[in-house]
């Protein structure tokens, strides 16, 4: 009995705290969204993003120059190499698809794996 009465007295406190957090979250988000939905915020945000992007690019270029000086492949070199591999990969994939298509045409049904594909929805089984 004592436990039950404890539940009744303490549970609302937990819930109240959670509700308070949820309410704070909603109010804060609503206020922030209102502020962030303005044209001036959009302009400032994009300017900040632009600066962030410029910094990234400067760092990338600096790294590339250093790698080049050290006679090591740059990111661009690796990208070109990867693009060549990607082109080969695509051609292989097309060949693989064509071969699989020929195989399945010559022996229909041979690809089937796993349990039988006979399941019926509950409404047609008359159960549940």
């Amino acid at each position: 009995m004592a436990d039950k009465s404890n539940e009744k007295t303490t549970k609302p406190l937990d819930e109240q705290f959670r509700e308070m957090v949820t309410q704070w979250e909603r109010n804060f988000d609503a206020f922030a969204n209102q502020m962030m939905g303005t044209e001036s915020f959009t302009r400032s945000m994009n300017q900040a993003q632009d600066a962030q992007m410029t910094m990234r690019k400067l760092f990338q270029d600096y790294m590339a120059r250093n790698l080049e000086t050290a006679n090591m492949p740059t990111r661009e070199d690796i990208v070109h190499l990867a693009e060549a591999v990607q082109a080969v990969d695509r051609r292989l994939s097309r060949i693989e698809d064509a071969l699989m298509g020929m195989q399945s045409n010559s022996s229909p049904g041979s690809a089937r794996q796993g349990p039988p594909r006979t399941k019926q929805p509950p409404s047609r089984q008359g159960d549940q």
Partner: protein
Amino acid sequence: MAEYDASLAAQVNRLVERTIARSVNGLEYIRGPAIPVGLTPKDVVLERGTLRLYHYRPQSDEVYRVPLLLVMATTNKAYIFDIAPGQSLVEYLCRRGFDVFVLDWEAPRPHERNLDLGDYTQDFIPSCIRTISRITGEPDVSIVGYCMGGVLSCIYAATHPNGPLKNLVCLTTPIDWHEMGLVRTWQDPRYYDVDRLVDTLGIIPADFVMQSFEMQRPAQRTASQIRLWEQMWNEDFVKSARAFERWGNETLPLAGEYARQTTKELLWENKLVNGTLVVDGKSADLANITVPVLSFCAEHDHLAPYPSVRPLMEKISSTDKKEIKLKGGHVSLIAGPNAVRRMWPQLDAWLAERSV
């Protein structure tokens, strides 16, 4: 008086117990390894660049004839469909008798910066469907697309009106991009130079993508941390929170061309809802879609608000179509305790009737 004392003692007792449990779980939370996710047994059946296709091992004696392909959004990992045992959509669908495949994405590498909507909808999805057909021996497939995965699925469906798509399910899929709220405001073409961004970076970094999500709900992270602290004594809650936190932190970067095309053609020109989108020379008019369609949307979705999702039903030509609006947000619609109760059974019931 005695009853009051007993009540107070019990409260103090509980407080002490929870404080100890908080300390133990808190330590585990800080020091513990990353929480395991995506545990349902599966095989990788296709692996090409950013694309991964998983085939989940069947968990029933017989399965529905039509295989099911879940298409994940390009911004996040697909283990949200398999976040934890008992809270896993794929595990649920496997147990309900579906043969489940999931199209997941890895972070695009620098050489994949030129991937665009054409690659995703005319190459990746068709490649997955061919693989599924080869494995299952079935000529058709049902697709369930989540968020941007739903957009890609719609474009695929609209550009392949003669099959082999049997059913299409869209989960919180934005169609009218002019109703995208803050994203549209922030990416105002007068201030947002997408060309400069893409030309400079090639791949849009994950932190840019994550920032744009988090800024829409700036208090969410702090509120989640407070809730986590308050519930730190509850081991299940902590595990679940850690899994969701991991998922949120593993946001993916985006291929530059794909981001450019999405911004210009979908967000600015709203071509999906206008029916003017052309992908690899094919019209992606939603009116081309005639297969049965089910659309789920969430009441409190801030990423794909209801007005952005609603036009799907009006634009498609399908006669068998249904929209279900549920309580919850963008993520809680598909994963977590509310999804288990609300969305999953309705998805199962709708698909079951159309998967024989």
